[in-house]
């Protein structure tokens, strides 16, 4: 079965063709990096405008690379939440229009379920499907969630929410700390590149203990701890110089960033990254233990973080991640998530609305 996936929930316009939930024939992502970089973050209205401009060429390219015509498709899958509502609406409306004109099923997909299925797809393709029940840790710029995944013949994949961040998402914390330290947007991936050059025990940053659900997480306190350290260490001048030096340079390479970063700051970055990873790892370990999960799926944009990937291998269950191109937002994961639903004959009505706060599980 050939599924066209479309994803426009934030600042990437993406389309992909996936066969039988396993084989990506194409995976096209048009990044809006240059549009938003100078604003220091995603501007929703500009993102929506870009999606409308990009959607037709991106979908055409996905089909072309797959060597397919519209009539070769069996279904159209699209993200309908969570995300920026104006952005979601472009992809959702376009997908509905294609499906209606083709007379093919249209399937709305939760963006978080998509991230999980990026890994499910790769494991299926490798011939070693992730063992269920599994823990899924979805970590991105907008989300930090722990789910238990089970599968039943009647329901298909079934998700239960075990824990989530109560404030900033992990990726958001990375980006905010990077900004605080004078690195250009989006600074999170840059911190991952710089962290290996610092001492992760160099600065003592506090862990968080949650009241209530121990599997919930919080990262705003950690960000504040970094801020206090910056203030106490009199780093304002260093940060201002770095901001000026790196301003307007587009994507920064690690060597360039490293040259603008003294050792003490590299230690702070390494310590921050270490603490974020430990917070995530601790919850993942407890969740796996308490649920008797047989594997763990680590996914979402922050799952591209090399430190995180390496540290999670210490868990006592098999840990599965996806290729880097499938960790960040893409449409192959949306098509992959739609496949089991299509197999069960599910489709979505054409009056499906975009849901910016859509939940995968309660």
């Amino acid at each position, binding site marked *: 079965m050939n599924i066209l996936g479309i994803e426009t929930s934030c600042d990437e316009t993406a389309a992909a063709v996936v066969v039988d939930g396993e084989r990506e024939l194409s995976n096209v992502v048009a990044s809006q990096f240059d549009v938003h970089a*100078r*604003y*220091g973050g995603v*501007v929703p*209205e*500009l993102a*929506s*405008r870009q999606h*409308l401009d990009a*959607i*037709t*060429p991106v*979908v*055409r390219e996905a089909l072309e690379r797959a060597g397919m015509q*519209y009539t070769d498709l069996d279904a159209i899958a699209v993200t309908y939440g969570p995300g920026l*509502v*104006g952005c979601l*609406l*472009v992809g*959702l*409306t*376009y*997908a*509905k*229009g*294609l499906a*209606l*004109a*083709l007379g093919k099923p249209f399937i709305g997909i939760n963006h978080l379920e998509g991230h999980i299925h990026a890994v499910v797809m790769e494991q299926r393709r490798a011939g070693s499907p992730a063992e269920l029940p599994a823990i899924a840790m979805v970590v991105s710029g907008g989300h930090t969630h722990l789910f238990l995944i089970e599968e039943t013949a009647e329901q298909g994949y079934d998700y239960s929410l075990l824990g989530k961040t109560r404030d900033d998402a992990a990726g958001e914390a990375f980006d905010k700390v990077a900004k605080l330290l004078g690195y250009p947007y989006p600074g999170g991936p840059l911190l991952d590149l710089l962290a290996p050059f610092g001492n992760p025990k160099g600065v003592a940053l506090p862990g968080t203990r949650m009241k209530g659900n121990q599997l919930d997480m919080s990262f705003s306190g950690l960000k504040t701890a970094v801020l206090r350290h910056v203030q106490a260490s009199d780093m304002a001048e260093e940060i201002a110089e770095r901001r000026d030096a790196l301003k307007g340079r587009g994507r920064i390479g690690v060597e360039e960033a490293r040259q603008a970063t003294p050792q003490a700051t590299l230690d702070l970055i390494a310590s921050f990254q270490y603490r974020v990873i430990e917070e995530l790892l601790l919850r993942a370990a407890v969740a796996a233990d308490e649920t008797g999960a047989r594997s763990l799926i680590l996914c979402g944009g922050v799952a591209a973080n090399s430190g995180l990937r390496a540290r999670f291998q210490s868990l006592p269950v098999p840990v599965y991640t996806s290729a880097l191109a499938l960790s960040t937002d893409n449409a192959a994961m949306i098509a992959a998530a739609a496949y089991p639903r299509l197999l069960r004959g599910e489709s979505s009505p*054409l*009056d*499906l*609305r*975009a849901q910016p706060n859509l939940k995968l599980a309660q």
Partner: protein
Amino acid sequence: MLTLALDTANRRGGIALAHDGAIAASRTIEAPDGFAGVVFAEIESLLAAQGLRVQDVDVWAPAAGPGSFTGVRIGLAAAKALAEVSSTLVVPIGNLEALAFAGRGDLRAAVLDARRGQVFSALYDAHLGPLLEPTVGSWEDFRAALGKRMPVFATIDAELFGSAGPAHAERPDQLILVDTPAASIALLAERRARAGETVPLEQVQPIYVRRPDVREPE
């Protein structure tokens, strides 16, 4: 030639079907929760009432704006997708131009409620040649730009001239209230499609008029 017009740009939307120069069906769309949820059902039901399907449409004519940014994009995204599959034409029509088409006289002013105490406005001649390009601003600014010209006004927004509307102080003598410009959009689009005045689908652009609320970085 069958042309389906779709207007989701403003508070009250509309849909219309033109068949060889005549309107076969037209209706307004009320969608208090937004057009995204209802637009395809409206298209299907209007076509079904004529014994038609989306595959029968030759020209898709979305309202290009101005209006709500999101509303404009919903209409354009829907039309582009429907046209893309069947390689049919998309001919977008500006909402103000469509209102002027629905108007009369040698001087045709079109106004729309732009919220925030402002109006979208433009002035056209009888052949829809633009005399004042679409803009957004206060009612007073538009009147000042008109100077001594006395156009016939057309709008879908009677509220503009109500006690709370931005143009409350002055209701023009010659005012045409249009339910929906969808029929005008359909007829104009059909005319342009026949004249070959079309652009490739991927080059179809919205007419936002208003700038996005973004503070430019330093």
